């Protein structure tokens, strides 16, 4: 059988959530297009999981409305919403077999036992676990359990699939594989997915769009490329990929290119709404080129530490604008600690942050 998922759009309108005096979410307005995979990304305590749980119906918003597929579901209990969720702990029922777990939602919503078992088997097939229905969850590996959780959620053909840090209990190698599988499945079946994570690399890898949250508010929304290349704030720049944030002075802006100075170093980058004057610059660690002292005009620096990591060297460099973190692929020659260097910038990996 084929899965017929009719993806639904999601809208949060003026959502506010307070736990006693603590305000977890203040005035959240967000639209998620049908069929997209949108990631809620942010440090712990930013409100991303609360947002997801309100969408699932597991928390009641203090104010505001939630619409799924154009229907206001704000007062609906969790079991009457057309969404399903993959939990961080997977939450597989340990006393039921894999097949019973996957069929549980179907049986609960009134599908006959036989029919439910057949569809559960299809769903398991979909995630590559055909023939595992008789096993208990405890007999599966972590990655397999994770896939059962996905199958259990998908078998209900929800308008929206919610994933709450689905990879955090897997080891690093498996994480990469499973996230690719989830993305493929989403693209193939075309469901809407809301994905919560605190891992920016994971977010960049799977998302159509990323919503970065901080302190209960949306810090920036964009595609992975927009967030990385045009961070709206120093926080975003540092959170999405590492970045050195240094003060600079923009001298001129012409044809979308901003020219700026950092001390004695002059450089240019795409302007992104920047205007002449004081600004901040996000410099990725691999955008710093380390040269011999006294060469071309650049930024004076002194190596404070150097760590050899196989395919690159990590440096901490003291400069007049603060301590910078740099990654240098030139492993054949390592600058010794305490040596003087002169720094310049590459063309990619430098972004002006408008004030």
């Amino acid at each position, binding site marked *: 059988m084929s899965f017929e998922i009719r993806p639904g759009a999601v809208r949060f309108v003026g959502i506010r959530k307070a736990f006693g005096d603590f305000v977890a979410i203040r005035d959240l307005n967000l639209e998620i297009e049908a069929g997209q995979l949108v990631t809620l990304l942010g440090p712990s305590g930013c409100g991303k999981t609360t947002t997801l749980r309100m969408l699932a119906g597991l928390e009641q918003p203090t104010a505001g409305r939630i619409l799924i597929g154009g229907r206001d579901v704000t007062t609906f209990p969790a*079991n009457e919403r057309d969404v399903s969720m993959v*939990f961080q702990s997977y939450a597989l029922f340990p006393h039921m077999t894999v097949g019973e777990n996957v069929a549980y939602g179907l049986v609960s919503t009134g599908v006959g036992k036989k029919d439910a078992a057949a569809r559960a088997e299809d769903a398991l097939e979909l995630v590559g676990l055909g023939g595992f229905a008789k096993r208990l969850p405890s007999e599966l590996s972590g990655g397999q359990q994770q896939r059962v959780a996905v199958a259990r959620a998908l078998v209900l053909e929800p308008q929206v699939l*919610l994933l709450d840090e689905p990879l955090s209990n897997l080891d690093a190698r498996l994480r990469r594989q499973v996230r690719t599988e989830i993305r493929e499945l989403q693209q193939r079946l075309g469901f809407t997915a809301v994905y919560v994570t605190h891992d920016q690399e994971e977010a960049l890898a799977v998302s159509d769009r990323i919503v970065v949250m901080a302190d209960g508010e949306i810090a920036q929304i964009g595609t992975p490329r927009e967030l990385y290349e045009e961070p709206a704030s120093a926080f975003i720049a540092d959170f999405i990929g590492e970045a050195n944030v240094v003060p600079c002075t923009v001298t001129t802006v012409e044809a979308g290119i901003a020219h700026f100075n950092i001390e004695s170093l002059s450089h240019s980058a795409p302007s992104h709404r920047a205007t002449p004057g004081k600004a901040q610059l996000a410099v990725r660690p691999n955008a710093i080129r380390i040269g011999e002292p006294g060469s071309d005009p650049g930024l004076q620096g002194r190596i404070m530490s150097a760590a050899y990591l196989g395919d690159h060297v990590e440096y901490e460099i003291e400069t007049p604008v603060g301590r910078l973190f740099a990654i240098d692929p030139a492993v054949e020659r390592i600058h010794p600690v305490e040596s003087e260097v002169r720094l310049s910038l590459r063309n990619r990996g430098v972004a002006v942050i408008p004030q």
Partner: protein
Amino acid sequence: MQRRDRRLLIAGCLALAGLFVVPWYNFYPGLLSTEWLGSFPLGADVAPAVVQLFEVGRWWLLPYVVPVILAGLAFATSDQTKRANLLIWAGAIGISWFLLEGFSIGLRGWNFSFLAAIFRDLPEGQSAKGLGGGLFALASLLLLSFGLAERGAMRGDAFIVGAIIILIALVATFVIYPIASIFIGAFQTFTGAFDSTAFVRNITDPAIWSLDCLVGPRSCGVAWRTLTLALCTAAGTTVLGLAFALVATRTRFPFKRGLRLITVLPIITPPFVIGLALILLFGRSGVITEFVADLLGLEAGRWLYGLTGIWIAQMLSFTPIAFLVLIGVVEGVSPAMEEASQTLRADRSRTFWTVSLPLMRSGIANAFLIGFIESMADFGNPLVLGASQGVLSTEIFFAVVGAQNDPARAAVLALVLLTFTLTAFFIQRAWLKGKDFTTITGKADSGIHAGLSPQMAATCYALVVPWLIFTLTVYAMIMFGGFVRTWGLDHTFTLEHFAQAFSVVVDASGIRWTGVAWDSFWTTMEIAALAAPLTAAVGLLAAYLIVRQKFWGKQVFEFALMLSFAIPGTVIGISYVLAFNLPPIELTGTAAILVICFVFRNMPVGVRGGIAAMSQLDKSLDEASLTLGARSSTTLRRVILPLLRPAIFSALVYSFVRSITSISAVIFLVSAQYNMATAYIVGLVENGEYGVAIAYSAALIVVMIGIIASFQLLVGRRRLRREDRVAQRKAGAVAATPRERTI
């Protein structure tokens, strides 16, 4: 039909059945007899409410049509908000009027003279509410719950709202209302009129508060005697319990596993049995008394009867409880702390005094307070051993059943006792708040507990070994005392006591249970078997609401549930007598009052077990079930209950066994028709029939051991939290000793 309409229809039918179909009032001999069908539905005592209203002229039943009409309107309306509000009004009016008329109009008309002054005299009063009234009250609560749920309470979950409201109603009826009845009872004269002089006279009675024993030969007031006894028992059991716990966990004592078995003893021992065994040992014609008298030529004394004897009996009874509490505390101290201390150059004795013991401090205080409350609440031992020197719990009993027959005095004494135990309970809660240093995490905590220093070990052995021997002697006395003709006089072996209690005749007409004990034995088993599943159900449902749901007033709810743990059984007993002897609820003399009493007395343990078990279950399991489209009742049934099976089993067994051994509350509530084993045995003791009494007790203990053992086999041995690592380190510990000396 939609779900919300269907459930509304069911509640409506319940209300209509309550009003039109079944007898509204309670009557003699009860629904289970079929005689009443003869005069139904027009007989004045068995008629449904509608007949009572028109034929008998009980006009105050008329307002009950209002909730029914409102619910009908709600059913018809399509406006969701209006419907929800109508339902809330229907439920609220129904239950309010139920309470109002129930408490205002009693057997002989108006209960309060001011009402009689305002309104005309009533043609006649009313008896207690029966099946009809009960159904109608339930229906009102359901309507109220549905209304609140449809207004969005508890995320719109009618099952949860209903469960909360019904549990609150039950706790209010069977815990709070009886306690309130004591307060009222304290201010009432024998005829029921309000009278504060009786209260003042009782509360200032020198028999309660006198301090004469400090200055002269006469004895002190019963309040001070009880307090002193409780403090001594608490201190003694805590010290002994700690010594037992240390021996069981920190030494190489050879019988450690056997030692742990004695923690089961207080659960399976009816509370007065220890006192009984002490009489057989140390009473005027006791074995040891006689032996010593022969040896030294001393006159046998009555020293056992009084506070000393009660104290010894309580020490024997409650030391295992302190042991059970403290074994968890001692094991809970993280081994890493002790290892850290030792690597910081502290020897074992210094580690114990400066690290381990301070970390156990709150646990020790807890054990002390538990001992205090247990001693205060103890009824069986003082009843057997108290003689003229009673304590509060026995004084309460004699104030009602004895020649005094003074419920007001009993109520005042109950208030004094309640004040003591509640104070201890509050101190315990305040003390434990945020002070629990023991590490009970899910993390595997590696490391090895430090053994005791030789001096400490010697001290603990010196306490534990003699006490262990004493305890075993007492239990041997209980098990074999029934086989001796007359203690102290004629020590020939006999089976006559067992025969008298448990004889069975098999003849042509089948099996005839001719022994004197069978009646009360079977009643006990039946009532315990009825109470156990109810206790488990109510306890686990309450635990589910406490752990998994957030609602307004939850802390008060939880507190009220736990409170009944601190209410002595005697107080419960007297409060049930005061509360359920007259309309609106009349239960005395029935089996129901015994079952209800057990359910609400044993429930705190079920709640705590349920809370502990449920806290171990990941909350996302429930949430997963909900997001998969299951209702919360389905979630509870299909996900939570199957995973809680061990907790359910232990709640069942515990409440079953506790119902068998309970005496303090029960002795007020038994009747000729429904007599319980413990009450029957106490009667035997009072008649001096020690042989049969001890034989019956031994049989009960064997039955309970059988039940617990088969349960253990069924569920499998519960795994202890941390393995006993001291024993495994035998070789290492020996090797470590000399090195320690050199440091």
